[in-house]
């Protein structure tokens, strides 16, 4: 019997949530589910501390050869700075959203016995994606995340949620098969599946394989033009589910795009960098404009996700350490802010029973004060105003664009930032309006937002603000093991 070291924790952060999900199947009560979630948070948190300490100490990725079989025969788990960034984001968002769900689920009739196993399995799948080093294993864990996330969208029932869930499922399954086709081609040509040992050279067959894998992941990540399923699914899901879908689940697929194009087939990037960056640009503009036109709060936030995911693809044309850091910081800060925003939107819906912006004029006082603070803080980060992680991320990206003399990308960043400010100020202006009496402030009204729901949203929003101050040390951790094609270019 030995104490688990960082390499063992790499396995345990997948199996703790998995076994917690299994335990939630055996003990379906609310109390058990809550304790299992807390235990999962504590144990995986400890594991992440151990992994981070090792990473900072040794300055190189942690790996674990499962079954004792070296790649390419076995499957290797692998964690570097990028993995840690996503793992920590998952930890914070899942913990806060679980806290929110503790109060939200009973109030909205969500069956604990069904919710908890799906929720914990989703946590397991996210951790598993971020430490996976194998192309086929990624297919399996992405299917876990799909089959956990889609039922969570539909769990509260309702015609709109069911339709949204089905559309989500069809896109996700199609994406998985297209991905698998690409992986099959890679295996046929090279006979191996490990992301870090494959040496893929530019040839037509492998370009097609990379294209298929990318298309499949884009469908899962809701990147333009495969985004149509996202706004209904993310806006119709229960609030804690919306939060983890937008902050984490779609990002798992984007994470894989970053990982594969920079580690597994960096040789293929040349032409593709502009295509990917271009799609990102279209997403940024298209998503923002549509967010501006929505009449329902959660749909504004969902379209905002479509737009904000586009930023992550800018790393390919910019290709520098600054851009890399900017994108990692953007992934993390957007995750926190977007999850906080969705939870806050859920709190508003909890009191009003709807999320039509029209009926939300001037509801910012009274029982929604804390929620409104969380919403405003999240909005600041999403717009990229200081002080926030969002500002830091956009500043890094802008700097990267200016240093590379890429004026076009710099202009795009500014335009997208202005559009984000426009759709978010529009929402805030409605909520904070003082021209009508607050419909919720009527005397005698005892409606309130449960503490857990208000504070979980605020925690995430504060987290995205604090990133502005913790940026420096975090970026040091997150940059460990950065890909050569990023560090080889300009940058500090």
């Amino acid at each position, binding site marked *: 019997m030995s104490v688990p070291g960082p390499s063992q924790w790499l396995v345990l952060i997948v199996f703790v949530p998995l076994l917690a999900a299994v335990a939630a199947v055996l003990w379906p009560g609310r109390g058990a589910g809550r304790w299992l979630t807390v235990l999962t948070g504590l144990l995986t948190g400890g594991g992440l501390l151990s992994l981070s300490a090792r990473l900072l100490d040794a300055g190189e990725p942690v790996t674990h050869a499962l079954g004792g079989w070296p790649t390419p025969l076995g499957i290797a788990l692998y964690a570097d700075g990028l993995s840690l960034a996503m793992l920590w984001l998952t930890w914070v968002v899942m913990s806060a959203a679980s806290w929110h769900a503790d109060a939200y689920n009973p109030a909205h009739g969500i069956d604990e016995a069904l919710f908890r196993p799906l929720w914990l399995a989703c946590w397991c799948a996210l951790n598993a994606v971020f430490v996976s080093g194998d192309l*086929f294993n990624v*297919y*399996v864990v992405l*299917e876990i995340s*799909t*089959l956990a996330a*889609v*039922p969570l969208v*539909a769990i509260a*029932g309702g*015609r*709109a949620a*069911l*339709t*949204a*869930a*089905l*559309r989500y*499922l*069809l896109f996700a*399954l*199609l994406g998985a*098969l297209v991905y*698998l*086709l690409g992986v*099959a081609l890679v*295996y*046929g040509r090279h*006979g191996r599946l490990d992301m870090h040992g494959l040496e893929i050279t530019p040839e037509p067959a492998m370009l097609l394989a990379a294209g298929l894998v990318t298309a499949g992941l884009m469908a899962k990540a809701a990147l333009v033009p495969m985004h149509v399923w996202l*706004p*209904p699914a993310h*806006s*119709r899901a229960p609030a804690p589910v919306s939060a983890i879908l937008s902050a984490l689940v779609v990002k798992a697929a984007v994470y894989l795009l970053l990982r594969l194009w920079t580690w597994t087939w960096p040789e293929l990037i040349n032409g593709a960098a502009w295509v990917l960056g271009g799609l990102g640009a279209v997403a940024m503009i298209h998503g923002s404009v549509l967010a501006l036109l929505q009449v329902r709060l959660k*749909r504004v936030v969902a379209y905002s996700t479509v737009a904000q995911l586009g930023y992550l693809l800018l790393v390919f044309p910019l290709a520098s350490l600054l851009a890399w850091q900017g994108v990692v910081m953007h992934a993390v800060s957007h995750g926190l802010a977007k999850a906080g925003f969705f939870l806050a939107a859920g709190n508003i819906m909890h009191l009003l029973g709807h999320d039509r912006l029209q009926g939300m004029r001037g509801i910012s006082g009274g029982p929604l004060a804390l929620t409104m603070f969380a919403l405003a803080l999240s909005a600041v980060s999403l717009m990229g105003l200081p002080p926030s992680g969002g500002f830091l991320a956009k500043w890094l990206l802008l700097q990267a664009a200016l240093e590379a003399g890429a004026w076009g990308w710099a202009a795009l960043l500014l335009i997208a930032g202005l559009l984000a400010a426009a759709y978010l100020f529009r929402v805030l202006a409605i909520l904070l309006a003082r021209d009508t009496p607050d419909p919720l402030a009527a005397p005698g009204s005892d409606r309130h937002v449960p503490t857990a729901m208000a504070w979980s949203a605020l925690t995430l929003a504060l987290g995205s603000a604090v990133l502005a101050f913790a940026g420096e040390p975090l970026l040091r951790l997150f940059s460990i093991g950065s890909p050569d094609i990023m560090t080889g270019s300009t940058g500090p």
Partner: protein
Amino acid sequence: MTPPVLYALCAAAIFGIAVYGLLSRPHLVRRLLALNMMGVAVFLLLVAFARRDPEVTDPVPHAMVLTGIVIAVSATAFGLALVRRLYRDTGRTGLSESRDP
């Protein structure tokens, strides 16, 4: 031409037919059928790869396909449950093209 090549071409044809089915058939059960056939086409390609060397058959793609078959039946079963529920609640078996309100 060798048998694996023949079956790979067959996989290509099935894949194309399934893509057509997915795009042209609005009925959700038919879409799930098409997705299943796409999956089988990919599996067939993998197994054809495994058979290229006439001496040894590569067991890794076979294992991948077995895993894939179980995942496919899981996803199909869940998808069908969702379709049945949608039908019971709304009487529809397809996704309307109109936008979510």
